[in-house]
């Protein structure tokens, strides 16, 4: 009998405890100091990966047979800004990718120029932060070649990608990565997917592929590549649109 009461008390206690814990956790999530600790795990994961993983290690490349029958598009499907609509009206013939910031020779690359550079083709897995994955084939210019052509200054520490998709509320999509990922052999400015020019839903005319990071770190509709010494002064200061507005990790390799 006493065991029965204890059991009942325990089950009730567990349910009440769980609810208390949960509301406690919600309150903790809103606490500025606690958030700082919670959010610092991002850096610890990055340090662990940078320390334990070969910085040149390649993301797995698959065979054509492994490809997803249909590659899901996510995020912006068709930017509705006057600029983008104007550019898409003649199939991006006037699209330019400006390379600037802390570089010795700022560049403005047209699509024919981008296609004329040495290319890399890779069949890789795209991992969305939501949990799904899709395998597709990408073709583009290694970012390393573009950055070498522009010549990075010694003070450059990050590469910021500016995009043409307006996210509403006066915010545009942008992303950034460190120089380890920027110079990684699989990091390409891609203009073709699955043997066709990039579709609008997938980022036409050019998007980034940074294969060791999650999908939101691979911006579409790239208009500018900027070398900077700090991410602080740019937009929300956290290095990317989703990082700024929702608190996603800046390092997307996890």
């Amino acid at each position, binding site marked *: 009998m006493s065991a029965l009461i204890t059991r009942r008390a325990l089950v009730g206690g567990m349910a009440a405890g769980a609810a208390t814990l949960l509301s406690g956790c919600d309150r903790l999530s809103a606490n500025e100091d606690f958030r700082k600790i919670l959010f610092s795990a991002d850096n610890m994961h990055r340090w662990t990966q940078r320390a334990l993983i070969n910085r040149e290690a390649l993301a797995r490349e698959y065979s054509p047979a492994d490809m997803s029958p249909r590659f899901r598009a996510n995020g912006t499907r068709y930017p509705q800004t006057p600029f983008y609509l104007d550019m898409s009206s003649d199939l991006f013939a006037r699209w330019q990718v400006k390379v600037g910031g802390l570089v010795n020779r700022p560049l403005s690359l047209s699509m024919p120029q981008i296609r004329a550079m040495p290319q890399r083709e890779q069949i890789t897995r795209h991992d969305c932060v939501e949990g*799904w994955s899709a395998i597709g084939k990408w073709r583009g210019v290694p970012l390393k070649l573009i950055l070498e052509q522009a010549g990075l200054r010694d003070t450059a520490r990050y590469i910021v990608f500016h995009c043409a998709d307006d996210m509403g509320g006066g915010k545009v999509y942008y992303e950034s990565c460190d120089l380890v990922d920027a110079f990684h052999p699989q990091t390409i400015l891609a203009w073709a997917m699955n043997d066709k020019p990039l579709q609008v839903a997938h980022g036409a005319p050019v998007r980034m592929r940074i294969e060791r990071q999650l999908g939101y770190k691979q911006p579409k509709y790239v208009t500018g590549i900027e070398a900077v010494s700090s991410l602080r002064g740019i937009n929300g200061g956290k290095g990317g649109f989703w990082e700024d507005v929702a608190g996603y990790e800046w390092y997307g390799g996890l």
Partner: protein
Amino acid sequence: MDQIEMKDEPTGGDLVRRHRLSTRIWHWTNALCLYVLFCSGLGIFNAHPRLYWGEYGAIFDKPWLELHRFGPLWTLPSYYSLALARRWHLAFALLFAFALLIYMLWSLANRHIGRDLAFRRGELAPRHIAADIWNHMRLRFPTGAEALRYNVLQKGSYIFVIFIALPLMILTGLTMSPGWDAGAPWLLDLFGGRQSARSIHFICAWTLVAFFLVHMVMVVLAGPFNEVRSMITGRYRLPKGEAA
């Protein structure tokens, strides 16, 4: 003579040292981690409540399991926020993984694994296991000095959790990280792809919930006050035998 025997072999009713400090610290750290990881994990799952086998799997592909989103009593945070759920999950994943690693090394050093967890000769004999199952079914638990040792079912479940289920959670978790997949591509081969790893991670999480529920039932049946005290202070009152 009697006194010496008492010292060597404590009997029912004695208050004895039961759990080491390392075991107690790890037990409660782990309890906290598993709670946070499970609830935040369901919060992450809610972003795409479908599971697949293989390398890829998205909205156009066929899932082997599709669920509704888990409600606010299940997830952390209780409202839908993939970003915050990930922050909780990834922060506590570090604590969980390193705590397990330290506990394993510490338990190897203080011979907890060798003395208390490893099966002894004869314990794995079918007759012995059958007898232990029969004792459990009759809710007959060891008394006196016998209660100082884990029985074979206990050992089996602790070994399964510590050396199989928890490492499996960590490894399948790492397989979902594109950074780790580049650094350790054998993870993808081990689990048959990233989406398979995600499925195994999910199944394994529920297996741990099942362990937790059985664990709770056993604690209640064995005497919750004594059991919880032994996991906090390390002191345990040896149960008296019925005949004694």
